[in-house]
């Protein structure tokens, strides 16, 4: 191999940079997110596994149904009606954005723009 030293050094630097997120996380181990459980009700509009992986899909579908198709029928969960709405639905049981949304979003380093427009009840709106 020509330029063995240069190639290997380059390769080493490349590998170090690419794997940076992995070992950075090993050193700065973060606490696993723990969500605040709602006190008002026990059952969600969909099962927990689905909500964990796909709540954003659900919210997106709700948004399309309400805004674009005028399908605003309330969702009935064990006799309790819920509005298809982040602000007027989800936040009724999960009122604290910090403890419920940001907890995971920060951990997973995702930055949804919900809060550019929507409010959490009574906190931001004043």
């Amino acid at each position, binding site marked *: 191999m020509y330029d063995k030293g240069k190639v290997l050094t380059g390769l080493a630097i490349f590998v170090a940079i690419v794997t940076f997120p992995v070992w950075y996380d090993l050193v700065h181990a973060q606490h696993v997110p723990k969500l605040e459980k709602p006190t008002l009700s026990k059952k969600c509009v969909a099962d927990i596994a689905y909500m964990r992986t796909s709540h954003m899909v659900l919210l997106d579908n709700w948004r399309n149904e309400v*805004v674009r*198709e*005028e399908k605003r029928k309330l969702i009935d969960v064990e006799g309790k009606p819920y509005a298809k709405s982040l*602000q*007027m639905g989800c936040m009724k049981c999960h009122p604290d954005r910090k403890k419920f949304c940001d907890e995971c979003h920060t951990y997973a380093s995702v930055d949804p723009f919900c809060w*550019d*427009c929507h*409010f959490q009840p009574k906190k931001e*709106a*004043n």
Partner: protein
Amino acid sequence: MDVKRRNFLKIAGLSAVAGLGASSAFTQLLKGNALASEEGAGGGETAAGHGAPEQGGHQEAETAFQYGMVIDIPKFAANKGLAEKCINACHYEHNVPDYGNPKDEIKWIWVDDYEHSFPDASQYKRNAGLNDLPVLLTCNHCANPPCVRACPTQATFKNDKGVVIMDFHRCIGCRFCMAACPYGARSFNWRNPREQYANGNYKFFKHGLNPNYPTRMRGVVEKCNFCPERLAVGKPPACVEATGDTKAMVFGNINDPNSEIAKVLNANFTIQRNSAAGTKPSVFYII
């Protein structure tokens, strides 16, 4: 061609083929109208039970329902401050920011004088008082909206109640709709409406925020949506509610001949803004 005329010709043509003759074509048309009105009053689902007339009728399903508004300008002129009440009600309800400068301005409903509201109407020897008459203006929710044609993402569209809706989530902020709207009904979020002072107060919401309605983010277009969230729970639009018992604003399905608004339209001479543009505005004015 006008919908009624198209219906008539269609029914007349079909009747002629069936050998029913012209007089029966006319009765068919009357029946068709009555059915359409029941559909409007009953709200969609019940009408299906009657069975739509075989001829005509249902191809125009998309225009069977059209929310509209009659604005009585003399009543507003007689009730000083009523227009402002409507504007404040709407702008508070929907968290419309007040920037205090024309460059950033956002408005869903506003007042301008007659001269600049109806510039295409004759100005020749016009009554002097008329030109300064304040006129309440908002989105016309056109039956034939150029903004909907222009939008490249269907972020603005006509819903099945004839309302021109803005989908704030989908808007890419190209502002083609603003160029297309002949009425200046559309505003753009030139900056973040939720900018705060150091003490946490919002800069552009002097009357506070309505916690039940979101704000918008910078970079999207917004306008009056005829309050679909209120209509869904049986309430009139915020501006109409603000007029109280004055009847200065009448709201309803203009395609339902039995509706209050249809009766008002039938009984009064009304005008629309720039009707020559062919957009078929659903907001009518009594002068």
